[in-house]
């Protein structure tokens, strides 16, 4: 009897893992607010990035404020391969990262070990 319960529990656990981690879930997106010809987005770093997708407008100087509250060494750097940025994120400090918004397109960023990812979308001005 115990064995049957253990077996069922195991299967349920596997099912939960598949549902929770492997099936698609909605991610958070933030669109930058433009103020005084500057767009700013705050990104929380804890077990990933929040928001995970940041939308910026082309041609307006942009700053992403990263704040890492997570102690994991996995997240201690943030890397934007397309912009040549590899910035250390000391825990519980706001680190501003300037983004060159000259060219529209989709860019990705990742943690230093390439485990967590975020997306940066620079939208062309005329699309607005």
């Amino acid at each position, binding site marked *: 009897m115990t064995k049957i319960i253990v077996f069922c529990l195991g299967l349920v656990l596997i099912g939960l893992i598949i549902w929770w981690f492997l099936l698609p879930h909605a991610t958070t997106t933030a669109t930058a607010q433009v103020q005084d010809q500057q767009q700013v987005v705050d990104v929380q770093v804890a077990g990933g990035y929040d928001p995970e997708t940041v939308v910026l407008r082309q041609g307006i100087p942009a700053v992403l404020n990263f704040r890492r509250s997570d102690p994991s*060494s996995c997240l201690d750097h943030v*890397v934007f391969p397309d912009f040549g940025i590899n910035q250390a994120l000391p825990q519980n400090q706001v680190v501003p990262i300037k983004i060159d918004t000259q060219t529209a397109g989709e860019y990705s960023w990742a943690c230093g*070990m390439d485990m967590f990812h975020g997306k940066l979308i620079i939208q062309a001005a005329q699309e607005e």
Partner: protein
Amino acid sequence: MSLKWRFGVSLILSLPMVLEMVLHPLIHWMLPGGNWTMLGLTTIIMIISARPFAQSAWAAFKKHHANMDTLVAVGTTTAYVYSIYAMLTHQAVFFESAALVTTFVLLGQVLEERMRSRASTALEKLMDLQAQTATVQRADQWVELPLNEVQVGDLIQVKPGAKIAVDGKVLTGESTVDEAMVTGESMPALKKPGDQVIGATINTTGTLTFQAQKVGDQTMLAQIVELVRKAQNSHAPIQKLTDQVSNFFVPIVLIIAIITYLIWYLGLNASNAQALIFAVSVVVIACPCALGLATPTALMVGTGLGAKLGILIKNGEVLEAANDLQTVVFDKTGTITQGQPTVTDIVGDTVQVLQIAASLEKLSEHPLAQAILQAAQQQHLSLAAVTNFQTHTGQGVTADLAGSATFVGNHRLAANYSISDQLQQQAQVLEAAAKTVIFVGQEQQVIGLIAIQDQPKSEAAAAISALKKQGLQTVMLTGDNQVVAQAIAHQVGIDQVIAGVLPTTKAQQVQHLQQQGKVAFVGDGINDAPALSAADVGIAMGSGTDIAIEAGGIVLTKNDLWGVPQALALSRKTFQRIKLNLFWAFIYNILGIPIAAGVFAGFGWTLSPELAGLAMAFSSLSVVTSSVLLGRTKLEKLT
């Protein structure tokens, strides 16, 4: 609390448990207080050292992510919680697993952090080269200013032994400058008025005054730093594999662990504790970090090493393309050759022939005249004054020198004069060797010949033979005619010549060659930019213009052909290291997980959670170490 503190606490508190593990089988020594002491020690470790793993894992969990922290947290918590349960129900405990796994994982992370910072030092070293201050002229006074106050157009004075602050042009003074730190060129360069100087290089012998032309982020050093920074953080296409794997790696491992437990407990009738130990080992041994670190660390070290040698590799894509090249195409002028004609042979009375030629050519603007004047200068000949100077377009020049009629010109001019059979024959020999022959005469007679050629660089033959040793086909593109081109190609050992190519069609020629395999193009001029872009790997050489640097995938700061085989060997070496790292990281997980799951228990091969934790710590450490060791590669061994 810092990583080192967490590790320290964990290590010291684990030691008594290790002691018991070792001594118990030998002398039956037990920890005073038994299980209660173990519980106490492990609880402190869990709270101080292991809690951050759980925090990160929970934060990630809320976002539907799972990572290494998830695995460590699940593994240690399972061992800890089960042991409490076992203690209460008077069964065997394994607190020491939770404690030791935490210790080993933290040990790995402490070492890995140190290695990772060592892998990224190349860039900081480059930036440290920058001078801090400059002696600038302000209101007729020389004042010491911080670098960021120097502006374009400022006059700057550099004393011997001081660093040249920014890029500029020498106005007064003469000195030798050590440019090795920026260009990789070990020979000091002589600087005279009119010459360019590069910021961050060291002035050695004399005092120079120069005018600043590029400051701030426009200087060559700043641009190199920017290039290296981008390269070090770029993505190599091979990484796509790990990107995909990383998304489902940890959940899959968790599922495998559950299946492991079910099979041992239900299928093989193992005890609950045994089944749990196998499952915990699986969770602990899996190491997604090794996969994630394999590419970026090697890329960082490889590109950093290149920068030190004057080889700037722009990104991981170039590195990967360089790995399966078939053909290297060279532009001829300025790349294979020195780019300016020099005198190679003088037939007849050397002094007399050269003196007449140089005296006449002094007034000529022909490009070949420069070569003759240079040769005369090298022999310290004094030039005589000429009268009645006449230019015969497309033929040469004539003039009166010290009372006698003299001439210097090509075969069309020489046809008007008499020439001995012997000189005529020698002229033919020289022409067959792709040299331009100049006839020099006095009174109606040709008295000597001067042969001029744009000679190959001294290192060309050796560098090309090194490329051939790497198994590459070499091709030369040139606008010259076939005979001239063949002669040069023969001298340096180039396999194939494509002559008569218009500058505008270089890119097409590259595309044509690409049908047979991947092609690298080596060039330096503005007109090479389309070909540099079209090639799979564009190598922009030396003094190269900004446009060429923009178009090239690899930039050689030194105008030296050795850079080509070195750059390609370095790329290959780095890419091989990436593959080795990835192979090791994958194999480690593919073999480690089944062993930890007890698949080979029948052969007596099992891993306790502690050993699994140790293996996991050293797998990611070994990948980073392997990358750092790439930085020890010797320059000579690259070619």
